[in-house]
């Protein structure tokens, strides 16, 4: 028996025979999958917390965007650095980690038909994460932690700042431990047969990377906190930078892994796609587990304390295995969509499957735009900026935030927004209002954040530094001067920030309206985001190997590689032109 909803995937329904206590499980009215009631409660709590921190970070974003736009230059220097600290921590840590813990509770309990390992641990983790984040935000607003997210030693913040981050990290680590406990009892109780689904495998990879991340956070911040309360001397700044980036950059690799798992999930939910090759996709996740975390070395490429061997091994040889994994996912995810669409009969030419894809479904448009922005924007710039020689030109310029705004925001945040258009109807069991605005929101956010990132990247190429309040260095003894082209790019950044913030605010408004005032869909299937047009069987083409027939994806991959080559060699040419070598 299969549950078929127009526009959604047909998922085989199966009897609920997991390890749940009586009354602790329900069957999803749309997918037929079992939903653990306890896990559902914590998914809701973490999702709501995530959206609140997204709003705080988003307000910070628009204030920063309007300050880096020289024609506006909104905030004073003091408030600029304060809000920059607030924005970084709320967006990169509190919003993302809360949403990821929600994913880690939802994915195994639903797809492995198991109960959550421990409600008690989930409460402790949630309370620690929330209290820690509120402590950090409070002390930042109090003006006692203007040290930016990196809080590089010897900058010193109030002890509450470090303690808040430690509590948040410990809470997240407890959540990750609860995830591992959940997959343990699922295997022990035989709640599933065979291998775990690919999405669970991806979530496990994200959880493993999170463990490394959070351990580095503890190793860095506990001595720094002890220093802040006078119990020990300051940590060595070089040691701090290396170890802190084990938290700062590795946490973004958790995002990458969780985002890719969400891509696979949304490809299935919106088009019925199945992975082209389970083994290859899992192999790519293994490459992430083993090699993606060493990318933290990108941040240390101009530090004099470590040698070239350490830098080149970690940012090139080892890291490229993780880049290979991203390129595998970048091929298999759209490839799986192409296979699914062609099998449905959308088989015209190279890109008929893509044109006919469910673009009116915000779950699909958000996921596919996230894939394109992450791949073309984040992937290409990441590899180029991570090349030691090129990094010398780009380090500490606005090119770096330009890169991570297309990975973490255009990639991860947009994918998580897209998933929310399914989480609210399936987990909260509420329907969205203003569905036309929902459909517009993902496009608007993608456009805004792309403008922000392009503006940052090209302003950085003109030498505009990152973090700095005043790119012109007004009042300096010697005039620094910024190329007029950089002003155009900083203006683009500002306009993009307005567009992206409008879309973010719209997203939060739509989610709040749905969760608190939306029409309940309990007892019936969710309203479909799109209805597929039936294609007559006679009109469908026959291919010798329909499970692997992906000519459109092959062409898109070729375009991607061409863009990669052009950007890579343009940067080397640019580097060669810095000095005249004859």
């Amino acid at each position, binding site marked *: 028996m299969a549950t078929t909803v127009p526009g959604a995937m047909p998922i085989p329904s199966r009897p609920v025979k997991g390890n749940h206590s009586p009354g602790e499980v329900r069957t999803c009215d749309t997918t037929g999958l079992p939903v653990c009631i306890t896990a559902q409660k914590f998914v809701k709590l973490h999702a709501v917390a995530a959206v609140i921190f997204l709003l705080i970070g988003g307000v910070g974003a628009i204030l920063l965007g309007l300050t880096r736009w020289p024609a506006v230059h909104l905030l004073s220097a003091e408030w600029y650095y304060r809000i920059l600290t607030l924005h970084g921590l709320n967006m990169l840590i509190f919003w993302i980690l809360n949403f990821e813990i929600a994913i880690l509770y939802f994915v195994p309990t639903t797809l492995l038909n198991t109960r959550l390992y421990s409600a008690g641990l989930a409460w402790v983790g949630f309370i620690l994460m929330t209290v820690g984040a509120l402590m950090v935000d409070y002390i930042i607003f109090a003006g006692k932690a203007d040290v930016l997210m990196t809080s590089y030693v010897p900058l010193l913040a109030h002890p509450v700042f470090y303690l808040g981050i430690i509590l948040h990290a410990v809470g997240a680590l407890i959540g990750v431990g609860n995830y591992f406990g959940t997959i343990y009892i699922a295997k022990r109780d035989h709640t599933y047969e065979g291998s775990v689904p690919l999405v669970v495998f991806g979530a496990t990879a994200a959880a493993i990377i999170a463990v490394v991340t959070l351990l580095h956070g503890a190793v860095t911040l506990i001595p720094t906190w002890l220093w802040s309360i006078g119990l020990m001397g300051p940590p060595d700044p070089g040691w701090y930078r*290396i170890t802190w980036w084990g938290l700062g950059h590795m946490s973004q690799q958790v995002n990458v892994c969780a985002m890719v798992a969400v891509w696979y999930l949304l490809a299935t939910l919106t088009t019925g796609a199945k992975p082209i090759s389970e083994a290859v996709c899992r192999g790519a996740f293994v490459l992430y587990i083993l090699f993606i975390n060493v990318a933290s070395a990108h941040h240390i490429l101009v530090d004099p304390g470590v040698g070239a061997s350490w830098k080149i091994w970690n940012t090139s040889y080892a890291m490229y295995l993780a880049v290979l994994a991203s390129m595998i996912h970048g091929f298999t995810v759209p490839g799986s969509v192409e296979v699914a669409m062609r099998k449905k009969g959308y088989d015209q030419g190279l890109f008929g499957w893509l044109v006919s894809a469910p673009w009116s479904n915000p779950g699909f448009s958000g996921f596919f735009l996230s894939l394109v922005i992450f791949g073309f924007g984040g992937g290409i710039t990441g590899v180029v900026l991570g090349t030691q020689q090129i990094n010398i030109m780009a380090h500490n310029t606005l090119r770096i935030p330009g890169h991570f705004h297309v990975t973490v925001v255009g990639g991860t945040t947009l994918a998580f927004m897209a998933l929310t258009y399914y989480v609210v109807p399936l987990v909260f069991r509420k329907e969205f209002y203003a569905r036309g605005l929902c459909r517009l929101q993902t496009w608007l956010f993608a456009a805004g954040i792309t403008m922000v990132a392009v503006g940052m990247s090209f302003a950085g190429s003109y030498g505009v530094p990152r973090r700095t309040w005043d790119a012109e260095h007004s009042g300096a003894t010697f005039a620094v001067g910024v190329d007029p082209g950089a002003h155009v790019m900083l203006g683009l950044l500002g306009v993009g920030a307005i567009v992206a913030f409008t879309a973010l605010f719209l997203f939060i408004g739509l989610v709040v309206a749905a969760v608190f005032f939306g029409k309940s869909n309990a007892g019936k299937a969710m309203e479909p985001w799109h209805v597929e047009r039936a294609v007559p069987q006679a009109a469908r083409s026959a291919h010798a190997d329909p499970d692997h027939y992906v000519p459109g994806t092959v062409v898109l991959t070729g375009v991607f590689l061409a863009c990669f080559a052009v950007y890579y060699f343009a940067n080397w040419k640019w580097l060669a032109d810095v000095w005249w070598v004859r």
Partner: protein
Amino acid sequence: MSKSEAGSGGALKRLMENPWLLLLLGVVLPTISYTVWGWIELWNLPKAVLP
């Protein structure tokens, strides 16, 4: 499929089926390659001599 191919496929499959081994490798490899090696580089830095 040759015997060696089957063996290596089996080992990889066993690795993928074992989240605890993946967890161990996922923690140990980057910790050694990035963190511990980086700390060793810092500890081995000669002290700067003032002019």
